[in-house]
């Protein structure tokens, strides 16, 4: 792409761009760090500012051209799909949701629809909206840094890239008839039967009574959250002072104090619920566990 430096300070820009991270961030109090070689002074302009016209508008124009060209060529080469006329009496196998929802459809393997299709997406949307209010780390505002925001970036990476994007890829390319696993190129066998040997966790532990199973499941789920909160609490409290992850010099206790119980509670709930997806998947794959909590109304 066109470099936006225009007629002033090309070197300033490159110097700032070289360390695309904390190095390029200079606090306003110490401006001396930056290598500044103004080639030509803008007419009394403020430092580090460019005229939108032509510098930004030019970039936008070129990008628009590029996107339109790519889209047009793509559309000339690849036709949008149009299958047989709709027929409500003939269900295709597999029936797949639009690709951007396949991560949720994949969750149906592990959870009931009320959780995979309704509650979990609600958690995702609400959780995403709450991010700015839960993350009180003042560092990393407006520049790329992994070191100063390790915990936040890891949470996002697990939630977005692993749980969302990679499951879309699995749902799109690796699922065939009966939602069975097929490798790309492998022939889809619609008669493939996979033995359903799943068993509920309380049953595996010998519980045969409905009430006892439900109570045991409830105890496990509750215990999981208690343990999860405890792990999160003690892990954060053990952050040493001067930890580069946190902006608070007092270390763990100061983080917890600034964070407060409400933020801690909500963040913990979302993280533990997110980790629960992985745990349920592991239990299913390793031990063929169907449900952990079994009640007449809901199963998890």
């Amino acid at each position, binding site marked *: 792409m066109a470099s936006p430096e225009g007629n002033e300070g090309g070197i300033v820009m490159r110097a700032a761009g070289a360390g695309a991270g904390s190095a390029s961030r200079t606090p306003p109090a110490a401006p001396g760090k930056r290598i500044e070689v103004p080639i030509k002074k803008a007419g009394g302009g403020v430092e580090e500012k460019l005229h939108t*016209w032509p510098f930004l508008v030019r970039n936008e124009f070129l990008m628009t051209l590029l996107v339109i060209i790519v889209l047009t060529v*793509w559309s000339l080469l690849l036709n*949008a799909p149009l299958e047989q006329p709709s027929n409500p009496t003939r269900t295709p196998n597999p029936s797949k949701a639009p690709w951007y929802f396949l991560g949720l*459809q994949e969750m149906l393997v592990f959870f009931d629809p009320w959780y995979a299709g*309704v509650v979990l997406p609600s958690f995702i949307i609400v959780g995403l*909206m709450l991010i700015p209010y839960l993350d009180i780390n003042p560092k990393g505002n407006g520049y790329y840094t992994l070191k100063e925001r390790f915990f936040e970036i890891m949470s996002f990476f697990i939630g977005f890239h692993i749980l969302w994007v990679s499951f879309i890829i699995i749902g799109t390319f690796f699922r065939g008839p009966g939602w069975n696993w097929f490798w790309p190129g492998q022939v889809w066998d619609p008669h493939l039967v996979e033995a359903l040997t799943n068993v509920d966790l309380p049953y595996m532990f010998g519980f045969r009574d409905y009430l006892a199973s439900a109570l045991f499941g409830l105890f496990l789920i509750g215990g999981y959250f208690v343990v999860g909160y405890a792990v999160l609490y003690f892990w954060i409290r053990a952050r040493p002072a001067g930890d580069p992850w946190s902006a608070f010099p007092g270390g763990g206790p100061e983080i917890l104090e600034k964070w407060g119980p409400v933020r801690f509670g909500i963040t913990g709930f979302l993280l533990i619920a997110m980790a629960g997806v992985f745990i349920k998947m592991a239990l299913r794959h390793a031990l063929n566990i169907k449900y952990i909590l079994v009640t007449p109304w809901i199963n998890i």
Partner: protein
Amino acid sequence: MAKFDWNETKRQITDSQAWQSIFRHGYEDTPRNRILMVSGNVWLHLHPSKVQKHTVRLRFTWCMGGITFLLFLVTVITGVYLMFYYRPTAEYAYADMKYLEFDMPFGMLMRNMHRWAAHGMVIAVWLHMFRVFMTGSYKPPREFNWVVGVILLVLTLLLSFTGYLLPWDQLSIWAVTVGSNMARATPLLGHGGPFHEVLGVNPVYDARAFIFGGAEIGPHTLLRFYILHCIFFPLIASIFMAVHFWRIRRDGMSGPL
């Protein structure tokens, strides 16, 4: 008769009342004109007249917010073309798709561009969210704009999802069936969900029936999705986009101090 003088003619045109009523400033590359170019233009004044240097760098912005908006505009323009040839009734919808593809000038191209731009918009909006997260741009004072952005993400998905049904082929009705069946499982509000007895919902009167406009996917659903797709969601998304852009304009782009 005087000799033809190009510069004199040009001056006469640019000094005329008509010209001056349309163009308020000259085109010479002066700092004043650069500013007027942005502040005097209704479209460009979405931008501030001056921007911080790093906000022009693609390495910082990835240009993904702009590309999302551009792809939205592409779908609006191609969508208007498609609306000319498409009737949202079960009898005609599929046939109209065929006519569109084989009979209409550029019909196939318009349909392709509409569909691929819509898919591209979903990807671009995710990449935009990823970039904004990575630069921590949701941090104060821009928290609420992130919330608006999440709403726009949901609206993008809903726009795409409602459009998915309109070709009225096997792919569309079954994909929408799978997607909408989730609403059946809504706790309390779906007739297949936990605690559905509490409110007494049933297949013709529950969350999924609200989406479908009836107990099953059918012509009523097609009309409903068509109106949502062509009018309601674009309108709502435009309103939120206005808020989104305006707040960026007020707060400025995030960046190293």
